[in-house]
């Protein structure tokens, strides 16, 4: 079974190798910065950008898939990297169009950018943070917690993971603890800060999902911190 996947993946990689450089290396970076807003709640890029829900995206071009130290990738992504998948215009274009068509079990919960211009533009924007022309990213990193600002006192709360484990029994009626994410996003192994920001965004009704607004609405800041502490480490 594993061998089979291996062969398919190698074939995919070979395909990319043949087309070498993609047809669309001509995107509009300024427009791409705007498209990137769809990515920026999970991915940071720019000077000092750190891994968040997703890995940081500096020096993305020519980076082997699944290769950032300290970021917890899906096994699918690690396998793709081991099989030789490298991010370039062609592979990124395919991945961004429909992430799960390339990496079937990627943890990236994103439907994809269907518009080829959007993809070309966002790649042009990200290209600025890669080797040649810009070896070292100079722009400031995309703002942490872009979709909602949370009181620093709340962010500083140290959650009790044991309490979080108890509270998590409500979450796992829908969200699977092993990180599977068909239809319902994975919340496993998020950085605590992102978890807390997302939950407070629901609580404050800035994020609009009705179930999550209801769930977060009755959780206290301590309870959210506890859940964040539990989900950060679960399964490790």
């Amino acid at each position, binding site marked *: 079974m594993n061998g089979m996947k291996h062969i398919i993946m190698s074939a995919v990689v070979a395909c990319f190798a043949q087309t070498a450089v993609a047809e669309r290396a001509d995107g509009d970076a300024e427009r791409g910065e705007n498209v990137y807003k769809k990515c920026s709640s999970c991915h940071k890029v720019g000077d000092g950008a750190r891994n968040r829900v997703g890995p940081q995206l500096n020096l993305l071009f020519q980076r082997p898939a699944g290769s950032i130290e300290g970021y917890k990738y899906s096994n699918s992504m690690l396998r793709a990297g081991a099989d030789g998948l490298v991010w370039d215009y062609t592979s990124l274009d395919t991945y961004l169009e429909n992430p799960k068509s390339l990496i079937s079990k990627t943890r990236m919960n994103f439907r994809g950018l269907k518009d080829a211009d959007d993809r070309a533009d966002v790649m042009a924007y990200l290209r600025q943070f890669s080797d040649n022309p810009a070896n070292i990213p100079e722009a400031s990193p995309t703002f942490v917690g872009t979709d909602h600002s949370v009181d620093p006192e709340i962010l500083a709360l140290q959650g009790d993971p044991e309490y979080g484990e108890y509270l998590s029994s409500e979450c796992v009626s829908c969200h699977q603890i092993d990180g599977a994410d*068909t239809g319902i996003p994975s919340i496993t192994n998020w950085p605590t800060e992102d978890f807390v920001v997302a939950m407070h965004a629901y609580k404050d009704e800035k994020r609009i999902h009705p179930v999550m607004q209801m769930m977060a609405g*009755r959780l206290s800041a301590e309870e959210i911190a506890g859940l964040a502490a539990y989900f950060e480490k679960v399964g490790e």
Partner: protein
Amino acid sequence: MKLNRRNFIGSAAAVSATLSAPMVMAGSHGKPKVVVIGGGAGGATVARYLAKDSKGAIDVTLVEPTRNYYTCFFSNLYIGGFREFSSIGHTYGKLAAEYGINVIHDWAIGVDRDAKTVTLAGGGTLPYDRLVLSPGIDFKEGAVPGWDVSAQQKMPHAYKAGSQTQLLKAQLEAMPQGGTFAMVAPPNPFRCPPGPYERVSMVAHHLKTNNPTGKILVLDPKPKFSKQALFQEGWTNHYDGMIDWVGPDFGGDKVEVRPDAMEVVIDGEVTKVDVCNVIPAMKAGKIAEIAGVTNEAGWAPVHAATMATKADENIHVLGDSSAQGDMPKSGFAANSQAKVAAMAIRGALTGSKVFPAKFTNTCWSLIDTDDGIKVGASYEATDEKIAKTDGFISKTGEDAALRKATYEESVGWYDGITSDMFG
């Protein structure tokens, strides 16, 4: 129990293993024992959480007659052709192998509340410190004149998933062109409030493709039903003119059926039908009645904070069988109640910490391809009942992308809750 050397050593070991716990109420037979009857959303969940969270300190036995359990939730999607039958089937292998639960495939037929034992149809007897009943629903006899369980082959209820669901789907597929599918809907309260209306939608979806001149006749004793505006909007959008819903104003509450003749009599008027899905009035699963914990209406009143019955503090009732207050009878609700009960039982038997009870429910329904809707609420335990604190419902006129996302969310939820139940 007579004290001998073996059980003395056993008790000493048990005490030293649990020194950190503030109290141990294990009675005279070593590890505390919990027997769970019914392996659905309530029973499988409570068994799994008790075993998982007590880390072996509680001896958990799960009694469930079937080896292959089919979930009622998503069984309508099988009828509509959106799921394979095998995709709603589950087994108990992981609960036994990975969680150490003693899974017994048998019927519980008796409860001795004084001796604290359960009798099995196969002849066994199970002692318990706490008993959890999660037996789902049974049908009230004589609820629909002309129908009893002996008629369920001709007029299936398909309201306990399994062979009945397969039978109803086969009858639907064999229905003659232009024929009539009738449903006798149940009065409140009943399992899965949107269930009959999602089923109507799924039957309509099948007919639209395979039998476009077919008709659906819904005979309903209730003047209104769950998510009514959403369903009726969807029926107009997708199945215009196919579905005739007859409420109590037009005789939906005065229905008799004649299974041998395949007729329904609506307020005295005889109508010939080709398929007839009779969903009678419901009551708690029989074992709850046998245990003597049900009320006159046929349900088991429970304390909200623990799900322990008002009749017996050592017996808990979960899910459809319980009379708990504001929660609907749903798989999601039973799963939610099971976690509260598991926490309360562990607290009582091993002294583990008990946090305030919280409950949630969401019910998704599918109207047609990629047209999903949902309703949900959160709840808390008061002295009187499980009380609703907040809620939401899908809106009419939502765009297609949101409806598709709602459906996809329900598919994700199915995977989530079934792994939460069966490991």
